[in-house]
């Protein structure tokens, strides 16, 4: 199903952590709000990528 090794997906982890934290911290000053915003950002991006992944898998299965 995947044309690459699943271990390549590990590249995603440090990137999403850094991006989410920087996104959160550039929108808030309060640490609690920064962490909450980071969590929501990470969840949103992961969900979005997940949907794209499922769509691509489905298209692959169709062909």
């Amino acid at each position: 199903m995947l044309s690459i090794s699943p271990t390549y997906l590990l590249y995603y982890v440090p990137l999403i952590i850094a991006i989410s934290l920087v996104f959160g911290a550039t929108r808030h000053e309060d640490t609690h709000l920064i962490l909450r915003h980071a969590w929501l950002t990470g969840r949103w991006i992961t969900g979005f990528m997940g949907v794209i992944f499922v769509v691509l898998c489905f298209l692959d299965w169709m062909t």
Partner: protein
Amino acid sequence: MAPEENNTIAVDGQLVDLRNRHLAALLAWLIPGAGHLYQGRRTKGRLFFVCILSTWILGFALGGGHVVYASWQPGDKRWHYFLQAGVGAAALPALLQGYEMKRHTDPFTGETDRDYEPYWGGFMAPPFRPVMESEADEVAAWYARRGAGYEMGTWYTVIAGLLNILVIYDAYGGPLAVPISGRKREDEREEAAEKENRGPSD
């Protein structure tokens, strides 16, 4: 010295003195997080420093130390460098290496002097010329040696540079506005919490 009226902003119920915002922005570019440390926003300063530089260094290591270089030659227009340079001082050695490589390359033949040895063992140095697409040049060798790591390393360093642009903005003008959709959801939550606290009124 009392904080200047224009440079003090209120965010999340906190007053933030941006001090000299031009200097803060410059420091934020030079070293991610340094602008915030200068402004006394220590937690954010440390967070930016760790997140951005670790992403950048990780990318640099994944790419075998060859993903950051400054070159604008036929066949090798490294546009990624403009974005990678967002992290400031960490990417500056590439400019010197790029200049030296150009100086040691024949402008007519486009070939680098084979005896030339780049500084610091080739750290952030561009590839030897000529570089041509689909030819077995030095860039092709870097790709072959690192595989996907070269691509990933390039993207990590590019993303780190882009993230630092947000940080520079934050140092200059304070936090970006939360999108309207996010604010709405937050207001709804606060209203619901307030109602819960009040309990049934009738």
